[in-house]
């Protein structure tokens, strides 16, 4: 694999909405991979001791990091709904309306993201 060509995943000049959805899917996939590594690292710190784990958690789980949590949810919902669209299309379903499906799935991801952000805000602030 040539790294030069991987940059093509994120080149949008002259591309259609399909490629934009594809680029975002790759991007959010990388974000989720980084989150998974961080998440597993945090859990692994339990082997060192509860204090280490608590110290790690206290740096990230707090009201100031709420926007980052919200963005993580956005990446998760986009990746999930767009992934569902790709699965449907790859089974040969709804191929003819593939562009409309991109808009529908993105809209669903945005609705779920806004609702989850609202719920997180209520949970953290208490109202």
């Amino acid at each position, binding site marked *: 694999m040539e790294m030069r060509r991987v940059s093509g995943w994120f080149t949008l000049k002259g591309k*259609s909405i399909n490629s934009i959805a594809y680029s975002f899917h790759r991007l959010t996939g990388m974000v989720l991979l980084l989150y998974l590594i961080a998440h597993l690292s945090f859990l692994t710190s339990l082997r060192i001791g509860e204090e280490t784990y608590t110290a790690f958690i206290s740096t990230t789980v707090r009201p100031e990091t709420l926007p980052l949590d919200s963005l993580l949810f956005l990446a998760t919902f986009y990746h999930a709904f767009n992934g569902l669209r790709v699965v449907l299309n790859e*089974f040969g379903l709804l*191929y003819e309306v593939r562009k409309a499906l991109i808009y529908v799935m993105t809209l669903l991801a945005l609705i779920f993201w806004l609702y989850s952000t609202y719920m997180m805000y209520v949970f953290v602030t208490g109202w």
Partner: protein
Amino acid sequence: MEREVLFRIRRFDGEKEYWQDFRFTARKGMTVLEGLYFIKESLDGSLAFRASCRMGVCGSCAVKVNGKPRLACETQIFDVGDVLEIEPLDNMPVLKDLVVDMDGFFRKHEAVKPYLIRKDDDYKNPKELLQTPKELHAYYDFSLCIKCGACYSACPASATRSDYLGPAAITAAYRFCMDSRDEGKEERLGLVSGSDGVWRCHFNAECSEVCPKSVEPAKAMQKMRLMSAIHMIKSIFR
């Protein structure tokens, strides 16, 4: 109607790559290919590009115009704008200026056996192979491919894996698998079911967007994928 346009062409002389600007007056209806011929004949005779039929049939003149692979002979300059960035196709080695080496592209096409395979081939006593209109329509759209390489250039999977067969070759395989006269479906499925075949596609679907003949390679790919899955499951029980 006439107006000045700018052709920014990505050139390659065998050693270095560079952009060169050409300004000239284009007239209404003038195609990108006519613009390239004008540059070659009047401004810079060293410009290299590939073209033949000038009517969207041979598929020789595919280039990237403002980032999108298109047939230069079918693209009118004024439909694109006043500034046109013209580049060679992606995913194929550039030989000179806009001319790419399509050898690998055609080797992949050849690899899927894009011809009728029959057990009763007898060239000394040829016989007519009948087909109903319904049987013809099952593959007709996919037989319109002119092998211009536009889909292959737009495909991100072809960009990252040089051994990937690509959308054009797999569409050709699907076209012959769906032909009622063909008897080589199992053989062909074996060729496209590997990691360099249908499973490498990530459904970017840009191939269908750029196809100048509306062949829908992405659709053929997904149908071939389903066919391949059934073939692989069947092969377990054989």
